[in-house]
C-alpha cells in the first residue's frame, strides 16, 4: 500500500449513483475500523473509576429495577424463568440494538468536524460502532452467564450445560442479525438527521416505544395469548424475534415460529440496504449542510 501506485484512479463526479458504495475503500481502511473501536472503548472509560465495570453495573441495575417494578409490583409473568434472568436475557439483545442504533444515528453529526476535514469511507464509522457495541455485549453476556451459573449451581433453575453451550454458539448469528437491523435503522436516522435535526429528538422516543413493542419485559407468549390473531404484527418487529430467540435458546422456552424469524431477517436486510444507500448518498455532501 505504501508503494507508489498510480494505476489507482479516483474519479470525482457530482451526483454519483445511489448504488455507489466504496467497498474497496472500506477494505483499504480496515485498520481504521479497529483503531476507532479502540478509541471509543478507551475514550469512554478514561477518567472513570469503575471503567468497563459500567457495562456490568448498567444491565444489573436495570434488571433489578425491572424485577421490582414489573415482576413484583405489577406481577407480569416471566414464563417460568426467574425474573432477574428473564430481564437480563431480554436486555442482552435489546441493549446491543439500542446502543448501536443510538450511536449510529448520530454518526454523521457527531463526526461532522472529522468528516469536514478528511476523507475516508464514511461507512467505517458505523461499522466500527457495531464492533464497539460488541464489547459491551460480550461483557453483558458474561454477567448474564454468571447469574445463570449462580442459579444453576444453587439449584434454583435446572440449567443444562449443552443447551447453554449451544445457545452461546448460536449467539454470533443473532448478533449479526441485530447489528444489521440496528445499522439499517440507525443509518436511515443518521441520514435524515443530517438534514433535519428533528429526527435527533425522535431517535430516543422511537427507541423507548420500540422497547415496549418488543418482548423485553414480557414474554412473547403473552401477546400470542392475548391477541391470538394478531401476533404476526409483533413479528414484523424484527427485534421480537431476536429477543425471543435468545431466551428460547437459553431457557428452552418455545421458540418463535420459523416463518416469523424469516420475516425478521428479511425486514432487517431491507432496512440495512436502505440505510446503507441512504447514508452513503447523504454522507457525500452532508458537510455542505452542517
Amino acid at each position, binding site marked *: 500500500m505504501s508503494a507508489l501506485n498510480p494505476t489507482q484512479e479516483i474519479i470525482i463526479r457530482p451526483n454519483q449513483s445511489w448504488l455507489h458504495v466504496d467497498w474497496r475503500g472500506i477494505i483499504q481502511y480496515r485498520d481504521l475500523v479497529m*483503531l476507532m473501536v479502540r478509541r471509543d472503548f478507551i475514550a469512554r472509560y478514561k477518567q472513570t473509576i469503575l471503567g468497563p465495570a459500567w457495562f456490568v453495573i448498567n444491565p444489573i441495575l436495570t434488571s433489578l429495577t425491572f424485577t421490582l417494578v414489573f415482576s413484583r409490583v405489577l406481577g407480569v409473568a416471566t414464563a417460568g424463568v426467574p425474573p432477574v434472568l428473564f430481564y437480563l436475557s431480554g436486555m442482552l439483545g435489546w441493549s446491543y440494538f439500542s446502543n448501536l442504533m443510538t450511536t449510529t444515528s448520530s454518526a454523521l453529526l457527531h463526526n461532522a468536524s472529522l468528516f469536514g*476535514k*478528511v*476523507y475516508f469511507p464514511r461507512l467505517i464509522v458505523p461499522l466500527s460502532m457495531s464492533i464497539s457495541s460488541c464489547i459491551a455485549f460480550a461483557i453483558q453476556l458474561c454477567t448474564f452467564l454468571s447469574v445463570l451459573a449462580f442459579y444453576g449451581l444453587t439449584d434454583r433453575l435446572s440449567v443444562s450445560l449443552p443447551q447453554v453451550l449451544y445457545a452461546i454458539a448460536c449467539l454470533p448469528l443473532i448478533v449479526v442479525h441485530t447489528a444489521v437491523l440496528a445499522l439499517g435503522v440507525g443509518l436511515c436516522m443518521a441520514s435524515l438527521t443530517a*438534514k433535519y435535526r428533528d429526527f435527533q429528538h425522535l431517535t430516543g422516543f422511537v427507541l423507548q416505544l420500540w422497547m415496549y413493542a418488543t418482548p423485553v419485559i414480557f414474554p412473547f407468549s403473552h401477546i400470542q395469548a392475548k391477541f391470538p390473531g394478531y401476533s404476526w404484527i409483533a413479528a414484523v418487529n424484527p427485534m421480537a424475534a431476536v429477543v425471543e430467540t435468545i431466551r428460547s435458546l437459553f431457557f428452552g422456552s418455545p421458540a418463535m415460529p420459523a416463518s416469523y424469524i424469516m420475516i425478521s431477517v428479511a425486514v432487517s436486510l431491507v432496512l440495512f440496504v436502505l440505510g446503507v444507500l441512504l447514508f452513503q448518498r447523504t454522507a457525500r455532501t452532508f458537510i455542505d449542510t452542517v
Partner: protein
Amino acid sequence: MSHPTISVRNVSKKYRLGHVGMTTLRDELQRRWARLRGDHTALGVTAAREKADSPSEFWAVRDVSFDVEQGDVVGLIGRNGAGKSTLLKILSRITEPTLGEIRIRGRVASLLEVGTGFHPELSGRENIFLNGAVLGMARSETRRKFDEIVEFSEIGKFIDTPVKRYSSGMYVRLAFAVAAHLEPEILIVDEVLAVGDVAFQRKCLGKVKEISQGQGRTVLFVSHNMNAVENICTRGVMLRQGQLVRQGSDVRDIVRQYLAEHQRMEGTATWQNPDNSFANEFFRVDRFYLADRDGEVLTPPVPNDSPISVVIEGEVLKPDSNLQIGYGLFTDDMELLYYSTNLDQPEASWIEWQRGSCRLTSRIPARLLNEGKYRVGLYLSLYRRRWICEPGVKGPTVMFEIIGGLSDSPCLVVRRAGYLSPVFEWKVSSGVELLAEAE
C-alpha cells in the same frame, strides 16, 4: 508521463445559503409528492419558488480547470473566499462538486487541519496510530515510521501522555509529524503551516519541499504566506471569486500579480511638481519617483529581491558644484535608515552640472530591505550652506512596500525582525583550511 496526476475539468460548486430546515423539508416533500403524482403544475410552482430563491445560491467555485503533473508543488493563491478551500475540499473528496469532473491518479492525503481525528483522551502514541489511519495509513506502515514521527515531532517523553495535556505547540508538532510521514502520491495542505513556532514552520516547509523534490510526490498547497509559496511551489493557480484567473509555472509573477491586486497602498511611488514648489535659483524639481527594474514607475508592492531605482528629474538652473541631490530612506514611522546623495562618491566621479534638463537615478540594491513599508524623502541642498528639501522635515516623500522574495532558502521565508534583510555570503573554513589560515 502522459496522464496528469490530477486533472480538474470544469469544476463548479454551488452552495445554498440560508434556509436549510423546516421550510425546505416541506418544500421537498411537496416536490417529491408532486413528482410522484406526475403533477407538473405543482412541480412548476415549487420550481418557480426555487428560482426566486436563486440569490441565495452562491458559486464558491466556478468552472475551474487545470492539470497537475507528478512532482509539481502547486500553490493555490487567492484571497479569503476565493474558493481555495472549497476546491481543496472537493479534491480531497470531503464534498462533491456540483458540476465537472476530477481525475486523480494515486493516493491522496489531505491536511486541511492539523490533528484531524485526534482524540484528547488518548495518548500521543495512540493518536499517532489513529491519525495515521484516518489519513489513510495502514497500521503496519505507521509502526514502521513510528520512531521517525516521534523524533520529528520533538515530543520525546510525553509520547504516552494524553494529548489533552499537551501544549498547543506540541499538539501541532505531533499532528504535522504524522502527516509529514504519510506516503501518499498526492498531499493536500491547507494553511497548516500558519501554526507552530518559526523554527517548526521552517521544518515543515523543508519537509514539504523534500516530499515533492526528493520523492517525486505531488503537493497542493494553500497559504497566505507568499514567501512560502514562492519558495516551494513550482506552479501557481490563482483564483478570484471562485474563478481561475491565472495558472502556470511562473509562480513569482503570479504572486506579484496577486499582491498588486490585493494590497493597494495609501501613498504613491511618484511625486510631481506642477506648481514649482521648493523654488530656488539652482535646481527645479519636476518629478521625484521610484522605478522598477525596467524604469517604469513602481507599482507596489515589490519583492525584496528586485532593485528599486530612485529617480529625480528636473532642470539645472544654475550649475553649482555644491548642489547636492539625493534621498533619505525612512521606515514607515519615519525613522531614518540612511541618506544617499550625488556627492557621496569620490570627487572624480561627481557630476559636471550643465544647464538644462537632467535625470538622476540611484539604485537601492536588491536583497537589502526587509519586508515592510518605506518612505523616500527628497534630499536637496547646497552642501554645508542650506537645505532646499530636507528629507523627513520638509520636501516630497514617496512610498513603497516590500513583500516577499526574502530568499531562495527555505529557512528564510518568514519575515525576521529588523529593517534590513540582506542575504550575504558565508564562508566556512574547517579542518585543514582552518589550520592553514592560522599560520
